């Protein structure tokens, strides 16, 4: 049987094509592969499900083993609401299956990504935003490297409390040639002229919003260093964009802007700067810009400053560039266009209000950490046993949060949690702890 995915596996056409090229069999095409490297047996893989209904059944059987519950999980991936139009656009064959066409036959992709970076630019109040890199972790690593290359220094102060996972990524990506200095929260910030940057994450791992941005910027700048801020753009309808308090490079993850969590598959990273040539020169990612065409008034698109990239100059380019997360950039653009300024503002207000509501509701039963700080979306609680609490909630069909350590649980609240959901969590927490 000719496989539905392989038209030329049909014996008749196969013979015809072999004849056309003058080959006896496909073996001729493999003549360069030495006999001792040839696999002498069939691959030992499971029996396939060639018929689509059989495949669907197999997959549905596997997928049915996944479970859902009322979830307060966050800590790096967030279940914000994804408008249906986002999914409609990013499942269009034209976008889903395209790759790297020229700005003619793929004008739509260029324009959609240009619009994405432009909307991010408005949200961030910055003029240069990259075509997305893999995720917020990579964006943070690269943003720090950009600061190091720009300043010619190799030391960075990680000022905020960040997640162990992000720290793991930064160590892997940076530590062979960059010193990572960590500042304990609440302590005095100390930098000197050897530092390339102060790195701030806001909200931090505990959901706390950094309020000393301007101070940190001034401090960094006083020492010739940059302020690099990682922030989730979902908060920027209500929170000040880091550029407003002096950040030089802003980065983060856009998963919140219209991507489903997809068990970790929804991430994409952004990096933004002002339109300052020496800093722009340090971007490894592609940058798309408007260019004129033969017809006056027509908008063409193309790569800005392509010579920066490893596509152009291999190891002489900045880091590397390749397939990353373009479709999530397009999707985030759709999201921002749907939300508009008013939607982003209201979303921020709703998340702020519900986070505070949840802190108060849980605060009646457990200790809420950092209760005096401004929290966006996340906060931590201290309990006798994180494991026991989460197991107890699980029995009540609730994923109650993420254990940061044996006694600390991080709780996440978005606009998708109703007040009833939060009350249900609080009641369940009370019950489990009773």
């Amino acid at each position, binding site marked *: 049987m000719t496989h539905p995915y392989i038209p030329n596996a049909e014996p008749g056409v196969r013979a015809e094509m072999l004849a056309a090229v003058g080959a006896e069999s496909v073996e001729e095409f493999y003549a360069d592969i030495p006999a001792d490297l040839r696999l002498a047996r069939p691959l030992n893989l499971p029996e396939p499900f060639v018929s689509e209904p059989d495949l669907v059944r197999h997959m549905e059987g596997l997928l049915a083993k996944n479970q859902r519950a009322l979830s307060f999980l966050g800590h790096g991936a967030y279940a914000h609401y994804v408008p249906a139009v986002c999914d409609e656009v990013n499942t269009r064959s034209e976008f889903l299956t395209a790759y790297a*066409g020229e700005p003619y036959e793929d004008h739509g992709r260029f324009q959609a990504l240009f619009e994405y970076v432009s909307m991010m630019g408005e949200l961030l109040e910055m003029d240069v935003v990259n075509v997305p890199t893999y995720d917020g972790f990579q964006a943070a690593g690269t943003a720090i490297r950009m600061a190091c290359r720009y300043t010619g220094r190799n030391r960075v102060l990680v000022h905020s409390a960040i997640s162990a996972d992000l720290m793991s990524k930064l160590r892997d990506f940076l530590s062979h040639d960059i010193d990572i200095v960590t500042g304990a929260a609440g302590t005095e910030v100390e930098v000197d002229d050897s530092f390339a940057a102060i790195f701030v994450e806001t909200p931090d791992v505990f959901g706390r919003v950094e309020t000393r941005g301007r101070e940190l910027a001034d401090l960094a700048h006083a020492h010739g260093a940059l302020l690099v801020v990682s922030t989730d753009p979902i908060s920027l309808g209500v929170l000040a964009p880091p550029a407003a308090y002096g950040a030089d490079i802003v980065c983060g993850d856009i998963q919140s802007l219209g991507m489903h969590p997809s068990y970790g598959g929804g991430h994409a990273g952004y990096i933004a700067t002002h339109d300052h040539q020496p800093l*722009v020169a340090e971007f490894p990612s592609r940058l798309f810009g408007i260019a004129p065409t033969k017809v006056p008034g027509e908008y063409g698109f193309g790569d800005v400053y392509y010579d920066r990239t490893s596509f152009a100059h291999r190891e002489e380019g900045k880091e590397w560039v390749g397939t990353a997360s373009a479709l999530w950039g397009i999707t985030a653009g759709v999201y921002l266009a749907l939300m508009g300024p008013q939607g982003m503002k209201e979303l921020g207000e*709703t998340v702020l209000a519900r986070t505070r509501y949840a802190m108060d509701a849980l605060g009646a039963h457990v200790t809420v950490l950092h209760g005096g700080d401004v929290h966006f979306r996340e906060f931590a609680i201290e309990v006798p046993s994180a494991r026991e609490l989460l197991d107890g909630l699980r029995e009540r069909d609730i994923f109650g949060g993420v254990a940061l350590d044996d006694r600390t649980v991080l709780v996440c609240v978005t606009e998708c949690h109703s007040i009833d959901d939060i009350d249900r969590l609080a009641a369940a927490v009370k019950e489990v702890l009773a």
Partner: protein
Amino acid sequence: WDEPIIFELSQPGRRGVAVPEPGAPAVELPESVRRERAPKLPEMSQPHVLRHYLRLSQENLGFDLNIDVGQGTCTMKYSPKVNDGFAKAIADLHPRQPEDSVQGVLEIYARMESMLAEISGMSRVSLQPGSGSAAIYANIAMIRAYHAANGEGHRDQVITTIFSHPSNAACAKTAGYEVITLMPNADGQPDIEALRAAVGPRTAALMITNPEDTGIFNPRIKEFVDLVHSVGGLACYDQANANGILGITRARDAGFDLCHFNLHKTFSTPHMCGGPAAGASGVSEALAPFLPGPVVEAHDGRFILKYPEKSVGKIRPFLGVTQNIVRAYAWIMALGGDGLRTVAETAALNNNYLMHKILQIPGASAPWGRRRIEQARYSWQQLSEETGVHSEEIGVRAADFGVHYWTSHHPYLVPEPFTLEPTESYSKEDLDEYAAILAHVAEEARRDPEFVKGAPYNQTVHKIDMTSLDDPDQWAPTWRAYVRKHLSGKG
């Protein structure tokens, strides 16, 4: 469509989607963190946002719509629609759910890992990297950690070849290595004498693609590996071009210590305008303790997440681009071992057939010999010399006929290059049509070179003047920059 930039469609007061009311008291923000000016995002109603993006989508050319053999080395193959449904079925799963609530996903990871291990001959596979380049980086990170763990941290050179993907060189450099690049010999093969001269106590690894983007398999590949091993280096196989050798030959059998696959190439996940993709890093037993964490392991009939002993840590958040792992798994399960071999053989057949057709076009050539595996790098050098028309211009003109090719094939060792990789997804008629279009354009180039140079004529926009994009005073990487520089600030 003559679709404006989205900001031009904005009208005050409109919105595309409404947000739930807080239902709880508002929070007053301190001034230091409060946003003062509303962001100038577009204000549009929902049908208008949709219409805008649908029109843009129609101005884009995906695999599904065309004969997409021109993105050579990118392995544009059919991504079955049924698999999109499986991908969607995990959309709402949170990566921090308890392991017992995601047994289905973890089982798919575990099965996928063992299938890729069988396909490559490797012992363990990490599916964490978000792309092929990220997998290359992960492999380098493991190489670095391996040598460090063995007290060989002084090894500071990575050897690669000029026809290997730029990321092999660029990732190595980013990871702190000095990069040595081998050039091809007269047969188009990386030069083994040059390798012999390059290896030594500073050699950390060889990073090599095979077949390279020329489509020619390096028959001495085992010698390369052995040579690197002989000086204590590791051999790392970039298998971006694996589509023609599935079930034919395996990385580990040639002695490689590490390899990577691009699931969005060889294993059919969609290219998504350039990601998210998915990379798979395969390693030998000796490298397994260094894999990025976590990995999935079976334990008492359940699947759990575990950090390898000497893990390099996180390459990306969480376990990987899960929806693409699911798609790739389903694709392999629809084909099986025999099916994968048919994929490879058909990819090779299609490529050699297409080459046969292309080489009949006057002015087209393919350096270095005759048979290829799954792709071939061609040259319009002769045509270009005769007409002054460059390869890029021919590709753009071809787009007027509904097909295209991609011309960014640095370095230009092959002059006026174009690279075609027909994969197993195309029919003979498709290949005939593609070749006929190129033949037609080549003929146009002889008849009226200026006409071809002026292309496109049939696309959304006309020939673009790219010069401003390299000029800091003129470039406009966002609309706000464009408004400032070119519209005197009046958006």
